[in-house]
Structure formats: C-alpha cells, structure tokens
C-alpha cells in the first residue's frame, strides 16, 4: 500500500482496527475457554526381568470452569502379577516357604534369591482444583483415594502460589496428608514373630496378630499416616530459563513395616535356622531438596533436575534427571532421557540376622539396601494437529547393589545377596483438546 498523506494513514489505521475488532469470537479459541476439555491418557506396560509385570492405564480429564479456574480428575488402574523377593537370604540348599495367604507352599532353589508370587489390582482416583484468588495469588487443592486388595489410601493437599516481582517469581507453600490402611492377605503377622510353616487350616495362628478386632486368620489391619509440608520458589531467569527450588519436610507414622517381608536368622556359619517377620520403626521423618531448571535452546528444550533426600532411617539419596527435547521440524520431537539414582541403606537393613542377636528393628527388603539405578529412555512424540498429540516412550532401568557385602555371615559370603533388577517400561500416551 502506498501512503499518500495523513488522510491515507488515518484510513488505513481505521480499516486495520475494524478488521481486528471484527474477528469472530468463535475463531479466537483462547477467549472460548468454557468449551475446552483436555483429555490426557496413557497406558504403561511394565516388565521386570523374572519378576513383576504391570499394566497401568491412566485417564486424566481437565476442564477450565472459569477464568483461570481448572478442575482435573484422574483415574488410574493397576494390574500387577509376578514374583518379588520375600526377604529371605539365598542358601546352599533349597528353601520352602508358606505363601502369605497360608494356603500353599513355594520353594526357592539352592543359591537362588527366594521370590514369592502375587497378583494384585489397584484403582485410584484423584481430583485437583486450581482456583485463582487474586491477580497474583492462586490456590490448588487435591483429594485422592486408592484401593487395592490389601491396602487403601485417602489423601488431601492444598497449596498456595504467589506471583511476585512482575510475575518473574512464584512463591509456593503446600501441605498434604494421607491416611492409609494395611490389611494383608492371610492376616496381620506380628513383627519379629516366627514365620509359620504350616499351610491352612492347620497353620500356626498364634504366630499372627489379630489387630483392631481382626479376629483370626485373614483378619487384622493397621494404619499408616503421613503429612508433608513444602515451600518453594520458581524463578524466571531469562526469556529462555525457568528454575525451581523446593524444600519439603514429611513425617510418616504408624505401621511402616511390610507385612509380607521376612528375614533369615542364621547361625555363625551362615546356615539358616529360621525366618522372622520384619519390623521397621513406627515413625520416619523425611527431608527433600529439589532443584529443577528448564532451558529453551533455539529449537530444543532441556529439563534437568537434582534431588537430595535424607531421613532419620539414615537413608540419603541423590537423583539426577535429564531430558532433552529434540525438535524435529514442526510436528515431531524425540525426547532422550537419563536418570541416575543412588541411596544409602536404612540403619536397620540386614541381609540376615545372627541367631540370638535379633535387633529391635530389622528388614531385608532390598529397596532399603544401598543401591543405584540407571534409567535410559527415549520418547517419540507427534503433534497431529493443533489439538491432538500422541507419544510412545520406552525406558529401561537397571538397579544394582552389593551382591557380596563384607559383613555377610559365614557361608552367605558366597551367596549373591543382592540380585540386580532390570525393568522395561513402554508408555503410549495421547492428548486431546476439544
């Protein structure tokens, strides 16, 4: 357009302004928030080598119900089956155990880490509500409930997010609590009691507790409560850089023992004499420092985080997580992922206990041992159109620990007390807006 004078400029501006104002609201999708539903769904296929298989579908529905006000509902279902270490140490001879239900026996071969078979299913639902309180203050509320055959959990949390410093800084404070109930299959075993070796109906009921009016085999439950407090700051450092730092403090109390885990009692030669049900302290205080940075390169995006965790069970842990989003044109991306995790052992962790020297607390759960995990993954994602995207990711994790610790007793020095764990996760996800 050729400008011929002040009148032409005024006319051009008038036309441009009218054109902008005449945009149909139906085409300005960002104004039409009431009509948007966000559906995020994913299915996990998880497999451990010679251990557990899990199928986990997740459906999340999010809707903006007012300006800046969102409600999110999430449904989760887990179907689990396979075998998991029962806690007993490998031995030079085959070992026979009674299943947790007390209805059958199973045998671990000589020198093999004893594994117990199980199947379970879990259903969970959670509701999140994000509510703006003012131009700079937002609140977030969450309620969740989950149920599985032998465990139920009810939790709630609330967070306040305060934008300051021209919305370059967000200060966060949050609190959450959960009330869990443990009701093990086969009844509640007394902590540090001998493991019964008779199958039902002649199993040794006297060796099991009947808590909370449980009344005999198959009954009994115990509760486990936890609360968490969190303070954090999220900072926009540059146009391309976002950084977050959180500190959280939490406390768990009640029945923190795993009712299915046992440990071996051995003589000074390392020969198994008996098995006892494990016992953990009834309180645990947890601390976490969490740092995350997101950085936008010219095309790609990097997510990097570090977490330091410590608790009064003497577990200290570091986690580094790195994801690189490699943009491939407009519609495709690849996300390579690496995660390193390490932890020290709980102060009551043991592979086996010397007969006559049973401590106040003992657990042979390998998840409480000193261990390291390395996870590598790759996710491919495709933006189908403006409102639909899907992705497919594969992650492989290898967990390693010390198979031959120096403090192993007698012949246990020759057994592999920590068996490496290899897992594969395949996750397919789809996101839609309509």
């Amino acid at each position, binding site marked *: 357009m050729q400008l011929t004078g002040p009148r032409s400029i005024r006319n051009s501006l008038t036309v441009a302004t009218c054109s902008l104002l005449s945009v149909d609201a139906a085409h300005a999708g960002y104004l039409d928030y009431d009509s948007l539903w966000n559906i*995020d769904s*994913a299915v996990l296929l*998880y497999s451990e080598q010679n251990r557990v298989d899990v199928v986990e579908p*997740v459906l*999340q529905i999010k809707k903006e119900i007012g300006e800046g006000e969102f409600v999110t509902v*999430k449904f*989760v279902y887990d179907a689990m089956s396979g075998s998991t270490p029962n806690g007993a140490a490998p031995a030079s001879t085959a070992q026979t155990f009674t299943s947790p239900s007390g209805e059958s026996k199973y045998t671990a071969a000589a020198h093999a880490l004893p594994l117990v078979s199980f199947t*379970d299913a*879990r259903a*969970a639902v*959670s509701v*999140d509500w994000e509510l703006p309180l003012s131009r700079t203050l937002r609140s977030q509320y969450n309620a*969740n*409930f*989950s149920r599985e055959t032998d*465990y139920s*959990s*009810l*939790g709630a*949390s609330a*967070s306040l997010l305060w934008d300051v*410093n021209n919305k370059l*800084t967000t200060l966060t404070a*949050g*609190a959450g609590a959960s009330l*869990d109930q443990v009701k093990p299959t086969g009844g509640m075993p007394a902590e540090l009691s001998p493991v019964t070796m008779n199958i039902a109906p002649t199993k040794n009921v006297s060796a099991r507790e009947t808590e909370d009016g449980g009344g005999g085999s198959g009954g009994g439950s115990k509760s486990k409560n*936890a609360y968490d*407090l*969190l303070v954090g700051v999220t*900072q926009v*450092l540059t*146009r391309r850089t*976002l*950084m*977050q*730092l*959180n500190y*959280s403090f*939490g406390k768990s109390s009640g029945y923190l023992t795993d009712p299915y885990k046992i440990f071996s009692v051995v003589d000074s030669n390392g020969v198994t004499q008996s098995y006892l049900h494990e016992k953990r302290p009834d309180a645990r205080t*947890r601390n976490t420092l*969490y740092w995350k940075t997101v950085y*936008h390169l010219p095309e790609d*995006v990097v*997510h990097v985080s570090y977490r330091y*965790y410590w608790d009064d069970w003497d*577990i200290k*842990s570091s986690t580094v997580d790195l994801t690189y*989003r490699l943009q491939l044109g407009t519609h495709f991306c690849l996300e390579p992922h690496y995660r390193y*995790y390490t932890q020290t052992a*709980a102060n009551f962790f043991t592979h086996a206990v010397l007969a006559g020297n049973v401590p106040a607390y003992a657990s042979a759960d390998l*998840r*409480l041992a000193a261990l390291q*995990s390395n996870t590598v993954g790759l*996710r491919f994602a495709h933006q189908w159109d403006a409102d639909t995207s899907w*992705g497919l990711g594969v992650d492989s*994790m290898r*967990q390693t620990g010390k198979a031959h610790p120096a403090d192993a007793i007698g012949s246990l020095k020759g057994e592999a007390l920590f068996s490496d764990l290899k*897992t594969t996760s395949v*996750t397919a*996800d789809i996101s839609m807006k309509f």
Partner: protein
Amino acid sequence: MKSLQLLALLPAFFLGACALEPLQPWDRDLLAQDQMQLVPHPVNAYIADHIYFSKEAASGGAGVGGGGCGCN
C-alpha cells in the same frame, strides 16, 4: 559443611534474580510453550514417579499430594 554453605548461597541467587530486567508479556512466548512447563507431561510423570516409588526408598520433592500405594 561445604554443602550447607552452598545451600545458604541459593537464596542470594534467587534474590539476585529479582534484579533482572522484567520480561514484557511479548517476551514470554517461549515460557508459555507446553514443553517449557516444569512438568510438561503430567500423566507420563505420574507413571514414572509411581515406578520409582515402588522400587526406591526416596520419593517426592517436586510437590505435595498425589496418591498412596501399597507397593512400597
């Protein structure tokens, strides 16, 4: 002790960030992208966290809330 000193420096780092030039709304284009969110794929993150929770002794840090599970 050294890590505590480093920890003490972090608030100073964030306070220093307050002196940065304010970003104008038109400078927030990249920050508004989905992939620049702290948790760009919440459902995938939930699934991954659930796996790690079931296999490790440490958990949490990114936020409060979430569901309980008898897997650990």
